[in-house]
Structures are given as structure tokens and as C-alpha cells.
């Protein structure tokens, strides 16, 4: 299921959703990140790392940006176990818990999405600009894009909520 979700999101982003950028470079969304954020917190670190890498690989193949998204995806996948540990509830995660609004709440999902998106966008910004003198001017667009990606991910979370389930706040 996770793999299918990843493939669908990568294809959708590359084909359609990438153009959903109301303020141009200030709001470049990375919809496919949602597929990575949907990995259960109890899944293994290698699975998270592999998913991040595959996400980047898929985006690079479709968009023709060889290496750019792979690096950012690998960094996100490598950092995801740490992010899950950081946001872990006091009693820890349950095996059945999914990283959704219903199971872990709006705050958890929003914070994880924002931290992950920020990490991904900052890495992508460094790899895209490459030269240190260009990084300061690209920093703010990267942060606003991370915010926009967070909003997009929350929207997707809301879209997949079954109508009879109540959102945990």
C-alpha cells in the first residue's frame, strides 16, 4: 500500500500537482512527501530511509533532475526515524497507530510535516543552488515552500479521512 501510494504521488506530482504554486518559486510544493510522512512510526528505520531514497529517485527520473531529489529524499528518509523519536508520545507509539489526523492528531501531523518538509526543501535548495553565495537568497523561498508543502500534506490528510472518523486535536 505504501509503495503504491508513493508511486501514485510521485507520478501525480510530476505530471500535475507541481504546477499548484500560486506564488511561483515561493510556493513550490512537494506533494509526494506525503507518501513518506504516511509511513507508520513503528516501521523500521531502513524502510524509512529506503522510502526517502525511492521518492527522490522517482522524482528525479520523471523530472530529469538527476541527483537533486535523491539527495533531499535520502536526507529526509535518514532523518525520519529521528523525527518520529522526537515527536513520540510519552508512552510511545502503538503498533496499530498510523501517522494520520485521526490516530496521532493535527498537531503531531502538522509538526512532522513541517519539519520533514523544511528538511527536504532546505536540502533541495542547497543542492539546486550549490554555490554558497546563492544560498542566502534561496533560503526564504525554501522555507515558504516548506510551509506550503505542509499545507498541501494537511490537505491530503484531510482528503483521506473517512467521513465517519473524528479528527484528534
Amino acid at each position: 500500500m505504501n509503495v503504491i501510494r508513493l508511486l501514485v504521488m510521485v507520478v501525480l506530482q510530476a505530471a500535475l500537482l507541481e504546477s499548484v504554486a500560486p506564488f511561483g518559486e515561493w510556493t513550490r510544493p512537494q506533494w509526494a512527501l506525503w507518501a513518506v510522512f504516511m509511513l507508520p512510526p513503528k516501521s523500521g528505520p531502513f524502510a524509512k530511509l529506503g522510502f526517502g531514497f525511492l521518492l527522490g529517485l522517482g522524482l528525479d527520473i520523471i523530472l530529469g533532475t538527476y541527483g537533486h531529489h535523491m539527495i533531499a529524499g535520502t536526507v529526509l528518509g535518514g532523518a525520519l526515524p529521528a523525527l518520529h523519536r522526537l515527536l513520540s508520545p510519552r508512552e510511545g507509539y502503538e503498533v496499530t497507530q498510523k501517522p494520520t489526523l485521526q490516530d496521532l492528531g493535527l498537531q503531531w501531523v502538522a509538526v512532522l510535516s513541517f519539519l520533514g518538509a523544511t528538511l527536504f526543501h532546505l536540502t533541495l535548495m542547497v543542492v539546486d543552488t550549490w554555490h554558497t553565495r546563492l544560498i542566502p537568497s534561496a533560503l526564504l523561498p525554501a522555507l515558504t515552500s516548506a510551509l506550503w508543502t505542509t499545507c498541501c500534506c494537511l490537505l491530503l490528510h484531510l482528503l483521506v479521512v473517512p467521513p465517519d472518523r473524528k479528527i484528534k486535536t
Partner: protein
Amino acid sequence: MRNLWLLLQRNAFLLTFLSLLAVSFGVLVRHDGSAQSSWFRTTGSIAAGVEEQQRQWRDYLELAEKNTALAEQNAALRARLLSMERQGEWSLDTAHGWRVMTGRLIKGPDGHPRSMALGTPGSGGGLTVGMGVLSGGVAIGTVIDVGDQYARILPMLNTAGTWSARIGRGGPVVPLIWDGADADRLSLSDVPRHARAEEGDTVFTSGFDLVFPDGLPIGTVKSSQMSSGSDFKTVYVSPLVDVRSIQHLDYIRNRSDSMRTVLAQPLPQP
């Protein structure tokens, strides 16, 4: 081997992460011209920095060897220069020349009136008793005893030694001694009253002691003292070299030294 395997197991996630990152970087550098040029520029500058650091360390570690080689080269050049300077003035020395060897000062005089200096090499390195000792081209003493590896040097800063010197290149030949009082003051005694000795004049070896060739610098005139009613005055000399702080020595000997020594002996009584 087992420990290595355990270490790899313990850091498997980190290693996998780094491997995937390396693969990603490889793809990026391979396909992105900007990243490629930046990557090669960065790695090139790092490699150049490391190379430069290594070169500096190598130079520093080889400093002693280079110093010795330079000292030997210096000695050879000085010997050659000395022989060239004597050309036309002293036919015997022109024919045979002076021989200069290098060495190091192991222990300098400590300022006591009778203290000796110790240098290397000894007889094993070709040193013989009676050789003149220089430092940077300045006369500082003579070899009075040699062992296999070391040589005992009578420095000018010793009250037991008397040296033959002259003020300027054409001044009268007078004995140079040290009175044991001040390490920065040698004395030229019995200098004729009429001899000129201005402060700053250079004092040279006369060559009459058969230890040094004439014209090697010893020091400069510091002051002079005239005794009332005497035909002589005492000239105080400031040495050009502080023997207590030098390291490298040159030993000098005329190649026909034995012949000169024999010929300089007083005639036997009839």
C-alpha cells in the same frame, strides 16, 4: 573480524544512509555541470591544501638534514674562497690551500676564565690538534685536544689563550687576550701608542700564530685606554660572535701545516 562485523552491524543504518547519499551525490555530480565544476573545484582546493600542509611538514622535518648539507656546502665554498683570496699573495698557500671542515658546538664556554668548549667531530672526523675554529667566518678559538668523536676547543674567551691580531688590515701585530672579566670584551695589549684604533675598526687575525690565515675578522674596537707615561695602550675589542650561543663550527687547517710548523721552529743552538 568478529568485532568488525559487530561494529558494522551497530552502524548499519548510518553506513546505509551514507552509501545512499554517496550514490545520490555521484548521480548529481555526473549529470549536473554546475555541481560537477563546484565539486572538482572544492576537492581540488582541499587536495591542494593537504598537499601544501604535507610539504610544509616535510620541509620542517628535513630542516636538520638540509641545514647540515648547507653547512658543508658553505664550508667548501669558504675553503675555496680562502684559497682564491690568497692567490698571488702567498704562493705556498695558493698551491696547497686551506682545508675547512664543518662541525657543531656541543658545549660553549660558560664565561668562567678557564672554561673550554666542546665540539664535534673528533679525530674520527679528521680533526687534529692545532686547527683553527671559526663560526660564520669569524675566528673564535683553536682545537687543543681531540678524542674519537669530540674535540676540546680553547676559545678566545679563556684567559689561557693568547692570539695574534692586528687592528685593520695594515695595523701592527699585537697579542689578543681575554682578562676574564667581561665576555663581551677582549683586550689587545701592548698596542703602540701611535697606532690608530678608532671605535668600530675591525680587528683581524694576523696569521702569525699559524692557526688562522691573516685577515679573518675577530671583532671590532670598542674603546682604548692610554696609560700615562707609557708607550703602549690597551685596546678593548668586542667579539663579532658570541661563542656561547653559536651552533655551527668550521675547522680550518692549512694543507702544508706540518711543514710550516717545522720551519717556524727556532733554530737549534750551535
